[in-house]
């Protein structure tokens, strides 16, 4: 991460870009602060220790939030009526309360005055152990990293496993670590992003991935702890805090010591048609948890390039990185936690495609010098020609080392063909190792000439990004509308039109009333996680 500036960008333009991102983001943060969602409230209950599900697999947190919402609403938060009910002796503990509420045999009230105050202070006391466990996990990670050590090289090598069966994933993940992976990502089952509940327990059936559950998290983290010890290198674990249950999955990640989470500010809106308000509210809370837990977020800018053209839409990646940075920092994340994403997706048929890739990668490097950038391999231009794909992945790896990327998602030549064979993964790692070994130091020699192709291309992308941000900030829709939401609804990003009043999960959004209380937010915002 210690590259000297190679692009000679105008610092004033960079300052303008950041200030426009702040301008575009601030009204959205205001909305996030004044709303809550069913998933945020469920996450708070999880932090208060409520877990498990009924015999049909419906989690108790869902039962309890639904019961409270049905009876007294969520405008004041779920915890005040819940802990008031516990104080009144409706049940001895949260689990029993949730079980009784599922049967409809609990009555919830909105306590007033001293009663409300007492319920809130009980809620705060009850959430504290959850936050304390997150703090403890962070300390454990720091200790293990000190003991086992970090990878010797940058970029860190990021590999994906996804069998659908957690008990198959575990040996595969351990094998991948032994072969050289520093980071293991367990891809989720297709469609989990649209489930409005977190499945429970160890799971053995998934479609193109494995369900994210608390038990699966725990099993995989324990297995990677074993292999970290064996290898003398701390192996990081990644999952996905995205979709309708983003806050709950973030909480579970903190409780089970995951190390990185995919968490993009607009991905769910654009690519999964999740309601924009729901996404921004869920995202802010989940990022507060990630900040506290010492988790590195990975953003999803690569996705823009799979739908739009990687040359024409290059600046939308930069805009999204700037927005992700703004929202992340507002939520308390530090620079070292911002795994801002970008990808090698320019068509190899275009002349100078590799030079444009270098320009874009250097631009990200220079705009975010302290962020652990995540560099993602070609997918869009991978065909069934695995030999050509192997060459393309080699160039991807080369661009990664030349521009000092930090997290390298290993490209598979069988991308878009089959789930990678064992041998595909081995060949892919050989490719990475060869490039690292042969050219790892090349960044030292690589200085694009002043006003040459690369410098000019990077400046052009940055200036287009500033133009787009200006357009967003000045996008006045109906009076009182929020410019960024207006832009999203106009189809500015990834060509998708997503209005603020539509999309999945909208019915789970609640406007907070005066007196809204969220003990987890109180503790997270107090910020004693260091």
């Amino acid at each position, binding site marked *: 991460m210690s590259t000297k500036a190679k692009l000679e960008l105008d610092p004033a333009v960079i300052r303008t870009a950041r200030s426009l991102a702040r301008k575009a983001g601030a009204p959205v943060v205001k909305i996030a602060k004044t709303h809550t969602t069913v998933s945020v409230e469920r996450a708070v209950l999880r932090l208060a220790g409520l877990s498990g599900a009924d015999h049909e697999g419906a989690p108790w947190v869902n039962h309890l939030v639904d019961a409270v919402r049905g009876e007294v609403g969520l405008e004041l938060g779920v915890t005040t009526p819940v802990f008031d009910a516990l104080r009144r002796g409706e049940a001895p503990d949260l689990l029993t309360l949730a079980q009784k509420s599922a049967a409809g045999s609990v009555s919830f009230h909105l306590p007033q005055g001293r009663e409300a105050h007492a319920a809130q202070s009980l809620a705060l006391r009850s959430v504290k152990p959850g936050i304390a466990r997150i703090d403890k996990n962070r300390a454990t990670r720091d200790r293990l990293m000190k003991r086992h050590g970090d990878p010797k090289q940058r970029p860190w090598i990021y590999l994906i496993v996804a069998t659908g069966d957690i008990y198959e994933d575990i040996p595969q993940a351990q*094998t991948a670590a*032994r*072969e050289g992976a520093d980071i293991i990502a367990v891809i989720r089952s*297709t*469609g989990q992003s*649209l489930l409005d509940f977190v499945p429970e327990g160890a799971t053995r059936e998934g*479609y*193109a991935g494995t369900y994210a559950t608390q038990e699966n998290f725990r099993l995989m983290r324990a297995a990677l702890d074993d292999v970290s010890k064996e290898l003398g290198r701390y192996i990081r674990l990644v999952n996905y805090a995205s979709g309708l249950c983003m806050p709950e999955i973030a909480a579970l990640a903190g409780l089970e010591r995951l190390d990185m989470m995919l968490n993009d500010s607009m991905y769910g809106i*654009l*690519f*999964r*048609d999740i309601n924009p308000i729901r996404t921004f509210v869920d995202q802010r809370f989940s990022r507060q948890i990630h900040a506290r837990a010492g988790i590195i977020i990975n953003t999803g800018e690569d*996705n823009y390039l*799979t*739908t739009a053209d990687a040359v024409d839409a290059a600046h939308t990646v930069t805009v999204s990185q700037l927005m992700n940075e703004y929202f992340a920092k507002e939520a308390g994340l530090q620079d070292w936690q911002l795994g801002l994403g970008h990808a090698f997706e320019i068509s190899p048929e275009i002349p100078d495609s590799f030079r444009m890739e270098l320009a874009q990668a250097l631009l990200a490097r220079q705009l975010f010098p302290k962020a652990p950038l995540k560099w993602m391999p070609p997918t869009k231009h991978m065909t069934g020609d695995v030999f050509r794909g192997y060459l393309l992945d080699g160039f991807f790896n080369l661009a990664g080392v030349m521009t000092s990327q930090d997290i390298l998602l290993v490209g598979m030549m069988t991308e*878009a063909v089959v789930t990678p*064979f*064992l*041998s595909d993964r*081995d060949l892919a790692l050989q490719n990475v190792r060869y490039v690292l070994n042969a050219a790892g130091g090349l960044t030292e020699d690589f200085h694009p000439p002043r006003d040459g192709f690369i410098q000019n291309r990077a400046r052009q992308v940055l200036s287009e990004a500033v133009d787009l941000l200006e357009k967003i900030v000045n996008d006045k829709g109906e009076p009182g509308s929020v410019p960024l939401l207006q832009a999203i609804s106009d189809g500015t990003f*990834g*060509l*998708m039109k997503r209005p603020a009043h539509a999309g*999945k999960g909208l019915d789970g959004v609640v406007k907070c009333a005066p007196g809204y209380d969220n003990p987890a937010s109180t503790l997270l915002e107090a910020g004693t996680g260091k």
Partner: protein
Amino acid sequence: MNTRDTGSKILPDIIRPYGDTTGDGMVQVSFTLPIPHDKRAEGAALQLAAKMGLAPALLVHAKAMGSDFTFFIVYGSVSHLVDLREVVVIEREFAMLSAKDVNAAIKKRLRRKLVVVGACIGSDAHTVGIDAILNIKGFAGGGKGLEYYSEIRVVNCGAQVPVPELVARARAEKADAVLVSQVVTQKDRHIHNTMTMSAAFREAYPAGKVPLLVVGGPRFEQGSEDALGVDRIFGKGTTPGEVASYLVHAMTQAGAQTMTTTKEQS
């Protein structure tokens, strides 16, 4: 040797793979065996190559992958012959088009966007199928969904949509095509739901104006379109590109001005 005429070139009926000389039969394969790398493993790889019809087989590369697996690359002359006369090509009734060609065809024929309304009907809450076809990003390597096509306007109604609501939405949006997905089904609910849906559309629209009705799901029997009253059934593993190509095909069949069809014609 018998020969066949395919346009300008005369092709032989019997062919072999081509390495660098006509008739050499040379192919290259790579595979992994779940055993440690040693002499026996190399022998095992050659045995497999022989059983695959490679004679002589040349083991050009063997590499241990961890302690339990070995990766091999084998070159060899394959003893099998290919008889072109026995090759059967199963044609789709429509040609596969690229996104660009789909967009161009719609632009040319309709001079407006093609409107697609999609939903899961009945109790089915599994939007995986419909989302795989509609969502811009698509799922699991099936390619970009219909939202990606600039000339297709997609209205995704989501899950558990009641049939009357779907009909109303299709009318309101002036749908050219209605896509319905039925993933999870018990006791033939998917058949019942689909027939209810197609009947409701026939009732709500004048004859000949019913939008194209397309259903998808793993349990539908291919070829049962007429019984269900729909225009096309898609099974497991269908890609958005196939659906888009089909829509263009159906549109062309129906003539230049309108792409609506009557069930009787199909």
